C-alpha cells in the first residue's frame, strides 16, 4: 500500500505541474512563444519524472519545439540539431570528463583503500572517535581521487562498517560517517561535477577547482570536528579503541633486533647497525629501515633548499618587479639602507624569523650588493633537518637574491617542527604505521596534489592534468600489481559508458536550451524573476532552495545541464559571481546525495551492511551530516572568501 501512496504523490505532483502550465496558458490573453517555452520546461520535468532516459527526452522535446519556434521550417531544425551535437563533440572543456573518469576507475582498482584505512586508523588511534575520523579521512582522499560515490561507499561499508560496529560504535554514527565521507568526491576537485558546471555556465574550470578546494576541505574538517565532538560528549557512541586493536605487528626481522613497539627507532637502529650485536639480522634490512626513516628529513631538506632558491633567486630582467612584490609581501621597506650581509645567519635559532628577515639587504640593497659575493655553502642535509630555517638563511646574503618572504619562513618553520616532532617520537610501532602510510596515503595524495596543483598553478590545462592523472592511475595500478588486461578493459568500458551518459545529456540539453532560448522562454523567466523585486540575498536563497528541491527527483547531471542555463543569465541582474554561484550549487548538490529518501549513498551502504542495520538507522546517521552541509553553505555565503580567496589570489 505504501508503494501506491508514493505513486499517487508523484502523479499528483506531475498533474500539478501540467495543470499549472495549462492554467498559465489559459490565463494570458495571447499565447506567445515564450509561454510555449515555459510549457516545454514543465513538460520536460514531467517526462523526466516518468523515467525515460533524460538525454533522449531533451533531444526529442527540444527538436519538436525548435520546429515550432522556426515556424515549421524543417531545414533549420535539422541544422540546429546537428550543430548542437557537433558543439558537444568538439567541446574542449568536456574532454576532461572521460579522462578524469578513467583515472578514477584505475585508481579504484589499484585497491589502495584497505591499507589506507588501516594505516589511517592506526595513525589516529589516540583521537576520540578514531575509527570514524579515519573513515572520513579515507573516504575524503579516496573519493577525491576516484570520484565514484557508489564504489567508495560500498568499499567503506565492507571495510569500515565492520570495524566500527565491532569496536562498539553506534550504528547511525558509523553509517553517517561512511555515507557523508563517500559523497565528498562530488565536491572536492578534481571532480566531474565542476567540469560539467563549468561547461554549462561558461566558467573557467581552473577557477572552479581553485575555488572549490577550500570549501571542500572545510566541509571535510567540519565532519571530522563533529565526529570528535560526538566522541567526546557521548563516549558510548564512539568508544576508544581497545589496546588489542591498536597493536601494530612488527616485522620478524625487526623483532629479532630485540626492539619492542615502544623502542625509539633512530638510536636503536644505529646501535644495532654499528655494534653488529644481532648477527642474525641482515644489514640490508636495517639499512632499508634506516632509509625509510631518513626519507622525510631528506625530502624536507630537498624541498626547503629548492623552494628557497626559487623564492630568493631573482632574474636579472625581472629583478625590479619581483623585488617590489617581495618587498610589499614581507613588509621589509626600510628604504635603501644597504646593511652588510649577515654572516652569523647559521647561528640564528628558528624562532627569530622576523630578525632573520631584517638582516638581509632589502630592495635596492640587494641590487647594490657586489656581484662577486660568494653564496654560503649549503650545510649538509642532516644539519638541515634539525635546524632548517637558519641553514637556509645563510644563503639569503648571496648576490642577485632577495629576502625570502615571510610566508616561506612560516611554512618551513611549521614543516621543520613537524619533521622534528616526527623524529622525536618515532618508535618502531610508528615506523610500521609510517611504512603503511607510505604505501597508501602518500601515493594518492601525491597523485591528487600533482593533478590539482598543475591545474591551479596554471602549469597544465585541466585536460592535460587529467590525462597525466589517468597515466598516474595507470602507473599506480601497475605498481600495486593490479593492472591486468581484464582490469584495463573494465576501466575502459566503464569510462565509455560514463562519458556517454554525461556527454549525451549535453547533446540533448544543447538543443533543448537552444529551443528554450528561441522560444523566448528565457526572457519570460527573466522578466518574471525581476518582477518579483528580489534582493540579492533573497534571490540566492530562493535559487538554492529550488535547486535543493530539484535534487530530490533529479540527478545532479540533469539539474546542472537543464536548469543552470536558466539560472546563469539571471545572475548578472543580481550581481552574483557565476563562480561563487557554482560553489554554492556544488555544496548544495552534495546535500541532495544525503537527503532521504532518495539518497543513493544510503542504498549503496544498505546493500553491503548486515541485514539488521536498517535503512532508517542509516538515514538517521546521515541527518547530522546534512545539517553540517547546510551549515557549510551558510558559512560559504557569509564568508565568500573561503571559496574566492584562492582564485582571486592566483588569477587576478
Amino acid at each position, binding site marked *: 500500500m505504501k*508503494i501506491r501512496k*508514493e*505513486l499517487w504523490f*508523484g*502523479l499528483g505532483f506531475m498533474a500539478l505541474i501540467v495543470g499549472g502550465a495549462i492554467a498559465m496558458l489559459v490565463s494570458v490573453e495571447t499565447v506567445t512563444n515564450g509561454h510555449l517555452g515555459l510549457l516545454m520546461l514543465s513538460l520536460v520535468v514531467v*517526462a523526466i519524472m*516518468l*523515467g*525515460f*532516459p*533524460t*538525454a*533522449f*527526452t531533451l*533531444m*526529442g522535446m*527540444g527538436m*519538436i519545439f525548435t520546429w515550432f519556434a522556426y515556424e515549421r521550417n524543417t531545414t533549420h531544425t535539422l541544422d540546429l*540539431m*546537428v550543430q548542437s551535437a*557537433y558543439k558537444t*563533440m*568538439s567541446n574542449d572543456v568536456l*574532454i576532461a570528463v*572521460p*579522462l578524469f573518469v578513467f583515472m578514477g576507475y584505475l585508481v579504484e*582498482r589499484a585497491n589502495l583503500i*584497505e591499507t589506507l584505512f588501516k594505516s589511517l586508523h592506526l595513525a589516529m588511534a589516540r583521537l576520540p572517535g578514531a575509527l570514524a575520523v579515519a573513515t572520513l579521512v579515507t573516504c575524503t582522499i579516496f573519493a577525491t581521487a576516484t570520484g*565514484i560515490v557508489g*564504489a567508495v561507499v*560500498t*568499499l567503506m561499508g*565492507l*571495510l569500515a*562498517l*565492520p570495524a566500527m*560496529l*565491532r569496536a*562498539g560504535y553506534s550504528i547511525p554514527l558509523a553509517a553517517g560517517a561512511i555515507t557523508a565521507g563517500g559523497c565528498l568526491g562530488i565536491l572536492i576537485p578534481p571532480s566531474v561535477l565542476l567540469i560539467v558546471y563549468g561547461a554549462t555556465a561558461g566558467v573557467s574550470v581552473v577557477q572552479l577547482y581553485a575555488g572549490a578546494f577550500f570549501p571542500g576541505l572545510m566541509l571535510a574538517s567540519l565532519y571530522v570536528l563533529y565526529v570528535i565532538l560526538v566522541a567526546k560528549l557521548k563516549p558510548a557512541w564512539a568508544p576508544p579503541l581497545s589496546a588489542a586493536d591498536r597493536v601494530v605487528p612488527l616485522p620478524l626481522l625487526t623483532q629479532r633486533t630485540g626492539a619492542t613497539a615502544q623502542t625509539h627507532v633512530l638510536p636503536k637502529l644505529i646501535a644495532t647497525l654499528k655494534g653488529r650485536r644481532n648477527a642474525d639480522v641482515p644489514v640490508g634490512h636495517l639499512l632499508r629501515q634506516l632509509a625509510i626513516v631518513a626519507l622525510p628529513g631528506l625530502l624536507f631538506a630537498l624541498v626547503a633548499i629548492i623552494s628557497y632558491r626559487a623564492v630568493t633567486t631573482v632574474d636579472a630582467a625581472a629583478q625590479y618587479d619581483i623585488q617590489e612584490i617581495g618587498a610589499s609581501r614581507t613588509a621589509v621597506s626600510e628604504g635603501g639602507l644597504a646593511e652588510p650581509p649577515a654572516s652569523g645567519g647559521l647561528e640564528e635559532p628558528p624562532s627569530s624569523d622576523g630578525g632573520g628577515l631584517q638582516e638581509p639587504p632589502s630592495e635596492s640593497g640587494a641590487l647594490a650588493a657586489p656581484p662577486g659575493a660568494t653564496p654560503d655553502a649549503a650545510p649538509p642535509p642532516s644539519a638541515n633537518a634539525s635546524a632548517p630555517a637558519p641553514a637556509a638563511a645563510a644563503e639569503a646574503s648571496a648576490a642577485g637574491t632577495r629576502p625570502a618572504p615571510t610566508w616561506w619562513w612560516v611554512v618551513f618553520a611549521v614543516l621543520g617542527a613537524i619533521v622534528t616532532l616526527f623524529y622525536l617520537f618515532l618508535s618502531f610501532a610508528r615506523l610500521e604505521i609510517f611504512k603503511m602510510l607510505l604505501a597508501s596515503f602518500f601515493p594518492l595524495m601525491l597523485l591528487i596534489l600533482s593533478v590539482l596543483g598543475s591545474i591551479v598553478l596554471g602549469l597544465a590545462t585541466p585536460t*592535460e592534468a587529467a*590525462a597525466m592523472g*589517468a*597515466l598516474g592511475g*595507470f602507473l599506480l595500478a601497475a605498481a600495486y600489481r593490479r593492472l591486468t588486461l581484464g582490469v584495463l578493459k573494465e576501466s*575502459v*568500458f*566503464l569510462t*565509455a*559508458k560514463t*562519458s*556517454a*551518459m554525461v556527454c*549525451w*545529456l549535453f547533446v*540533448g540539453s544543447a538543443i533543448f536550451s537552444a529551443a528554450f532560448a528561441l522560444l523566448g522562454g528565457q526572457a519570460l523567466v527573466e522578466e518574471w524573476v525581476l518582477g518579483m523585486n528580489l534582493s540579492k540575498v533573497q534571490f540566492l536563497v530562493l535559487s538554492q532552495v529550488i535547486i535543493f528541491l530539484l535534487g530530490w527527483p533529479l540527478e545532479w547531471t*540533469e539539474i546542472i545541464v537543464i536548469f543552470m542555463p536558466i539560472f546563469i543569465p539571471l545572475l548578472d541582474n543580481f550581481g552574483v559571481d557565476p563562480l561563487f554561484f557554482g560553489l554554492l550549487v556544488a555544496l548544495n548538490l552534495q546535500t541532495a546525495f544525503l537527503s532521504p529518501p*532518495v539518497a543513493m549513498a544510503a542504498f549503496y551502504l544498505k*546493500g*553491503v551492511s548486515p541485514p*539488521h542495520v536498517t535503512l532508517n538507522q542509516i538515514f538517521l546517521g546521515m541527518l547530522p551530516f546534512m545539517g553540517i552541509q547546510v551549515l557549510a553553505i551558510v558559512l560559504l555565503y557569509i564568508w565568500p572568501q573561503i571559496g574566492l580567496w584562492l582564485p582571486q589570489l592566483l588569477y587576478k
Partner: protein
Amino acid sequence: MQSFLLAIDRFSTWIGKTFAWCAVLLTLLISWEVFSRYALNTPHAWVLDAQIMLYGTLFMTAGAYTLSKNGHVRGDVLYGFFRPRTQAIFDLALYILFFLPGIVALTWAGWIYAGESLAIREQTFSADPLPLYPFKYIIPLAGVTLLIQGVAEIIRCVQCIQRGAWPSREDDVEEVDVAKLKEMVNVQDADIQALDAVVVAKEGAK
C-alpha cells in the same frame, strides 16, 4: 526473437567497446604531447584537434552501447515504483514520441552535414590540418547504431507489455559490482553474517 535482440545488443556493445579504447589513446596522446612540449620543446599543432576527435568519437559511439546496457540517466523517482508493464507502456510511448524523431533527425542531419564536409574535403583550422569529414561521419554512425538499438528497445517494451516482465539482457561490467568489490577487499558473506550477530547483540542490549 530474443536472440535477435541480443545480437543487436552485441553489435552496439561491440561498436562502443571498440571505440572505447579511444580513452587509452587519448591518455597516451596527451601525455606524450605534454612530454614533447615541455621536455623536448616540440609542440604539435595537430594534437589539439586529434584529442577533440578522440573524445568526440569515444562518447558518441558509446551512446548505443550505453543504451543497450540501460545505462543512460533516468529520473527513477517514480519509475522504480511502477510495475514492469507500466514502465514499458511509458517507455514505449516516449520512445515513439521523443526518441525516434530525435534520433532520426540527428542521423539524417548528420549524414547531410558530413556529406557537405566530405564534398569540400574539409580540414581542421590549424597549421598542420587534419581531415575533418571522418569525424563528422561519426554523427550519422552514432545515430544509426542508436536507431538500431532503439528498435531493439522498442521490441523489448512490446514484449514486456505482453509478458509483464522485462526480457533479460547480457551482463556487462558495472560501476558498482558488489561481488567484485567484496572480492577485492577479501570480505565474505559469512563475515557480514557474523557482523549481524554483533548488531543484534548491540540492539538487544539497549
